[in-house]
């Protein structure tokens, strides 16, 4: 941490100590009004999508090595693998790109909640191309052990298999039994989000089922920078002065030449990007996209965005956010079940959180609206939950 950062964090601490509001919101609103609408062909460069090829995967050599080793271990000890990652950290990309290790791997992305045995059986049967119908996981297990040879299944987002309610863990627990019963025939690679892992590990000892666990590490700053520069290839980047600057830097900027000025502003931009993204590649891409201030022909004007300070949230709002962290995304009905709230109560809280842009909504495969944490506020909200809900989550 540089001296300037230390001063900044010290100032922020003093603000907190004496309960002074840091007024950042006004500047964001003002800037949003001035900001030009960026062309679609430029914005498309910042679309978040999982990488399919190992060659394009950045800074994941260590994790890929762990996956290779785990596969070799499975051949001897038949142990399944668990991959723990944060949303946007590149877990899906890693798993997709790792298929060079096991080319015949079948990938099951659970984009919606799997809340019944029938749904799970149907998904697994389809994935394994089994045409017979089964009434229970036990029947499917017998079929697999009798008829299948060696298979590799990548099951993403295992947190979609449970819902935080009485009897809401049955499906997940039965799936784990199924996983153990079929592990000689199937190499199971399961992925889970960090917060769900924290919760399920505490209440259901999830980690004990997986002798091999891979935790995704933050991407290095150099790789993040190269990713952002790659996405801007073909454009000349002009760095603008951030809204907030120390008087020392202001003075420095006035003294130096145009080229040196650009160099210094580039340094400031990437420093803020690294600080915001904390090694999360999707967050870095989002930051770069939101910082694009204007595009003129083949020149992009980049101005670092200011992330607003989260206001005081009510206890119930924090519980809603925590439930979303645990389940990755939730519909209103699911939220009512998880928090034992009334429908009206949940809707009111959701509207409030949407307005604050702390959560985002999107339609799931079955057409219902689901709500999830806004990636921009991921770390801020985690810190808030740790502080206010006394959670020892790291």
């Amino acid at each position, binding site marked *: 941490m540089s001296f300037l950062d230390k001063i900044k964090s010290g100032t922020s601490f003093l603000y907190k100590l004496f*309960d002074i509001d840091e007024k950042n919101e006004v500047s964001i609103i003002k800037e949003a009004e001035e900001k030009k609408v960026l062309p679609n062909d430029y914005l498309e460069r910042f679309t978040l999508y999982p990488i399919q090829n190992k060659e394009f995967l950045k800074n994941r050599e260590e994790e890929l090595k762990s996956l290779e080793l785990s596969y070799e271990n499975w051949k001897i000890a038949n142990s399944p693998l668990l991959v723990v990652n944060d949303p946007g950290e590149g877990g899906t990309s890693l798993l997709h790109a790792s298929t060079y290790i096991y080319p015949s791997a079948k990938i099951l992305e659970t984009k919606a909640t799997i809340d019944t045995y029938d749904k799970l059986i149907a998904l697994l049967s389809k994935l394994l191309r089994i045409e017979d119908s089964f009434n229970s996981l036990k029947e499917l297990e017998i079929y697999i052990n009798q008829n299948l040879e060696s298979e590799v299944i990548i099951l993403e987002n295992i947190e979609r298999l449970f819902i935080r309610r009485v009897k809401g863990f049955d499906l997940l627990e039965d799936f784990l039994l199924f996983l153990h019963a079929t592990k000689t025939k199937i190499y199971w690679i399961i992925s889970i989000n960090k917060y769900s892992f924290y919760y399920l590990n505490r209440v259901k000892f999830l980690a004990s089922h997986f002798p091999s666990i891979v935790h995704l590490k933050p991407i290095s700053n150099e790789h993040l920078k190269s990713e952002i520069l790659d996405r801007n290839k073909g454009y000349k980047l002009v760095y603008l002065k951030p809204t907030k600057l120390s008087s020392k830097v202001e003075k420095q900027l006035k003294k130096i030449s145009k080229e040196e000025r650009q160099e210094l502003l580039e340094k400031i931009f990437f420093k803020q990007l690294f600080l915001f993204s904390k090694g999360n590649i999707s967050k870095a891409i989002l930051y770069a996209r939101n910082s694009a201030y204007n595009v003129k022909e083949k020149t992009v004007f980049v101005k670092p965005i200011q992330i607003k300070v989260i206001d005081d949230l009510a206890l119930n709002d924090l519980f809603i956010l925590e439930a979303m962290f645990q389940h990755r995304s939730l519909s209103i009905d699911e939220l009512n079940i998880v928090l034992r709230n009334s429908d009206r109560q949940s809707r009111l809280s959701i509207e409030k959180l949407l307005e604050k842009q702390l959560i985002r909504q999107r339609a799931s495969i079955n057409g219902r609206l689901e709500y999830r944490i806004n990636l921009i506020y991921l770390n801020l909200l985690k810190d808030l939950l740790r502080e206010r809900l006394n959670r020892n989550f790291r």
Partner: protein
Amino acid sequence: MKRILNLLFLGICTLSFAQKETVKNVKSNVENTISTATDVISITKILTIVVVIILTWGIMKLLDWFFKNLVKNFNRHRLKILRLQPIVKILVWTLAIYTLIITLFNPSAEAVYALMGSSALALGFALQDIVKNVFGGLLIILDRPFQIGDRINIKGNYGEVINIGLRNTIVSTLDDNTVTIPNSAIISDSISNANSGALDCMVVINLWLPIDVDVTQIRKIVEEAAITSRYLNIDRPVTILFFDHFDDHAATKVVVKAYVLDARYEKLFEGDVTETSKKAFIEANIYN
């Protein structure tokens, strides 16, 4: 006649002289008293007393505001922060009293020792109860059987300690009553402390069920009711115990021991687990 007149004149002269001397004496006495009084009560001293009192009051208010904000912004360290509050306040009071004594009397070391000796005796008799309470307060702060923010049970009053003063301790009960307990009573009584400085505390929930219930099924329901509660501290274990009771009616007593994430939500947690368990029992036909 001349002799009489001479005697009268002599008498008047003596009387007048004596009066003059008395007036002189009285005058000198009054002057002495005024001078001593001015030495003891001067404008500077009065001003100092007023300034010290106003400053102490201001510092106390400032400290209240400061600690309130600290608690608000650093909720996770709430209890540690509150622990400091009475110590800092007592230090400020001590400093204020010391300043006043020095300003008013400026006593010598011998005078201080003499004063201490005699005042100890006097205070021992006259202010016995107050002194007991003050020393009780100091003992509570030093010995720390509980802190501000702890949930304690003393003399049948269960609640959160909201202030530890020099004379008494204030507890806010679960019914939102404020109970003021003299510190001398606290140090001579047994105290049960539910969280001992930690933010979380164990909550014991009792559920009553028919005697012939399937304990495996009940254990699963009750455990899941606890682990799915929003108020649970998931970093601590959940324990479930079963007891058979044959007092009036045969019954199974289920005891759930779990930690609430913040002692302030103790009753909310208890209510949440009880309600969820009850709903699940009804759904599973446990009561029939």
